[in-house]
């Protein structure tokens, strides 16, 4: 019990298997408050499945998943977990393509999520200001009235990060945020995530090592569904087991 008191996210002994294949095998992991943590690992290491478990999309066969020390995430569905304050960015950028950029953010804005409160919702000045701020942060002000479908790949990534910010979550799960970005955009993204992690926790899954280095975060290496190594990037990349799992035998 005590072990998870001080954590924002606490996974202990989590396993899940699909048709006999163990995607996650006895995984234990902790994210603290206001921590930026990077997750790396070869393909099939279980990174996306881990996020599915945290966000309620997949139920683990066994193990504990707690949020904020006391909320059992395995009992909640996606919407409830999102309302608790866990935001997720998908590996493939997923924005609402037939809405404008501003509408995308408005939908993400932290407001009551009920059907009727949505029907009678009307953005007040405070909301508009908040949207303007986020647009500024993700540098999409000039495109706010365009359909999201017309954004470039990198812009969609940023819009999705913007949507995460609008949600005002305590924990952001960010899956491959810099895929398809230019080097300059990658650097900016690292800065943005670091800034975000001043006030909330961020978990980033990435393959781009220079990006991870820019983040200067604690690194967790996943392989075959469990934690292989943890520590600074230099520390884990010196670990022979990590090298082996990346290069294969």
């Amino acid at each position: 019990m005590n072990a998870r008191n001080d954590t924002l996210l606490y996974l202990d002994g989590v396993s899940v298997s699909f048709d006999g294949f163990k995607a996650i095998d006895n995984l234990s992991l902790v994210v603290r408050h206001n921590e930026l943590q990077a997750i790396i690992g070869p393909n099939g290491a279980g990174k996306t499945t881990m996020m599915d478990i945290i966000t309620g999309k997949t139920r683990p066969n066994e193990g504990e998943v707690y949020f904020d020390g006391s909320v059992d995430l395995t009992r909640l569905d996606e919407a409830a977990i999102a309302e608790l304050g866990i935001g997720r960015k998908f590996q493939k950028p997923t924005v609402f393509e037939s809405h404008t950029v501003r509408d995308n953010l408005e939908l993400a804005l932290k407001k009551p999520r009920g059907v009727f409160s949505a029907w009678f919702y009307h953005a007040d000045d405070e909301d508009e200001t908040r949207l303007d701020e986020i647009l500024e942060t993700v540098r999409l002000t000039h495109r706010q009235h365009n359909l999201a479908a017309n954004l470039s790949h990198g812009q969609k990534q940023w819009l999705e990060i913007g949507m995460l910010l609008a949600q005002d979550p305590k924990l952001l799960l960010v899956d491959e945020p810099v895929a398809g970005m230019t080097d300059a955009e990658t650097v900016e993204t690292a800065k943005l995530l670091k800034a975000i992690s001043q006030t909330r926790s961020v978990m980033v899954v990435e393959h781009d090592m220079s990006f991870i280095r820019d983040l200067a975060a604690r690194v967790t290496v996943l392989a075959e569904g469990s934690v292989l190594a943890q520590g600074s990037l230099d520390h884990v990349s010196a670990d022979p087991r990590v090298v082996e799992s990346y290069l294969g035998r």
Partner: protein
Amino acid sequence: MHPFRLIPKLLLALALLITAAPGAFAQDVEALVNTLPEGSYSDREKVIFDLAATGDDRVASILKVLGEGDLYVREEDGRVVAGKRAGRDYALSDPLTGEALGAAPSSDLDKIRVNNRLRRAIRSAIGQLTLMSPSPSVRLTAARSLLRNADPDALELLDEALAAETDTGVKTVMELARATTILKTDAGLDEKTAAIDTVTARGNREALAVLTASLSTAPSELTPAIERGIAGIERKLAMWDGLQNVWYGLSLGSVLLLAAIGLAITFGVMGVINMAHGEIVMLGAYTTFAVQQVIRISFPGLFDYSLAIALPLAFLVTALVGIAIERGFIRWLYGRPLETLLATWGLSLILQQTVRTIFGPNNREVGNPGWMSGAFDLGGLSITWNRLWIVVFALVVFAILLAVLNRTPLGLQMRAVTQNRRMASSMGIRTPWVDALTFGLGSGIAGIAGVALSQIDNVSPNLGQSYIIDSFMVVVFGGVGNLWGTLVGALTLGVANKFLEPFAGAVLGKIFILVFIILFIQRRPRGLFALKGRAVDA
């Protein structure tokens, strides 16, 4: 005796001489019948023996009429006739041919009288002719009629026949008839108990009726034995009824399987919603009709082979139609399942109307070849040949399809394309061709399903519509992309349907099944045999 009565006899004898040998036998019986009115009772008895000795098929019925006292001589021409009272008059008929001879008042008729001795003679003569006839089917009919009538007077004869009987089938019926008869007589308890056992051992609906009827007349000491017998038979019948339902269910299930199996390819493997699937089945049925039509007109001798000829043709026709549909329409709609659904629905309307325009809106007659008609009994089951062949056919088609998918290069390519189109394409598989062939295969299977369905259903332009919803239910219930699921799904739904029918009626049973599937899909959206894991969501 009236002297004029001799004239027809003389004429008859003359005719007999002229026509000579071939007709002689028939004339013989007629001559004998015409001598019946003459002489004393003992003369008549001799004629009866002579008649019986001819062994002619018609003799038994004449003797029966005579025994019932319904044989008369018409006074105006001395002809021997059978007479049945009809109002005030008698309706007359020829005792040999059954030809109606008008009516006459009783004053114009002389009854050919019989006494008890003659009656006994007649009975034993009939018994000899029927119960001891050389033909087992005649014996069986006679035994069955005894079983129905249970005439205690025939008991002696029955015993005699039983002793001589060699055919086991006939023998069991005779034994049952004997036991039934004994239950009606005032025979001793032991004999009756033995009779009850015999009847119980028979164990069918007839036996149940016999026992139930005897319950009211039998002495009270026998009641427990009879009740035990009834309960035993009812249990046995319930079991056979259950089995019969299973059989009907399997039969319906195999029809569903046939209708759905093509869909399992196009929808299950390719993910294409083909609402025109039912119409492709219909095209297969119409191909059968067309083939039979040509055979009827030009090669009547080939009729028994009509299905064998129709099968490959139907496969070819519908596979080509399928490929045309895929190349012409569906390939523009990959990745848009709901639009595919609508477009193929439109195609189904067009196909229906085309067939209606060519063949007319009415049901078309598709005949069953000889080897598909009739039925046989298996234990307590009654099995029709066409249903049996369809079950066998469905399973064979299923096995072939499974082999094609798992053991041929085409099957391998199909599976490759459905699992990873881009990868397959970069490995040199011509994916558009594979798509077209897969769709053609699914449609061809639907076509041969149509050949089978033409044997048990009305062939009309609406044939397909009655199967489309059921087929989708089967595929969805069984689990998409899984042929075994389709098999299990089809058979389960077929059997469930037939088991519900006795309780709920056909329509309500079907509604229950639909509601069940709707609820089932809610619980397991991917069907019975679902693919699991990340691939599903991707």
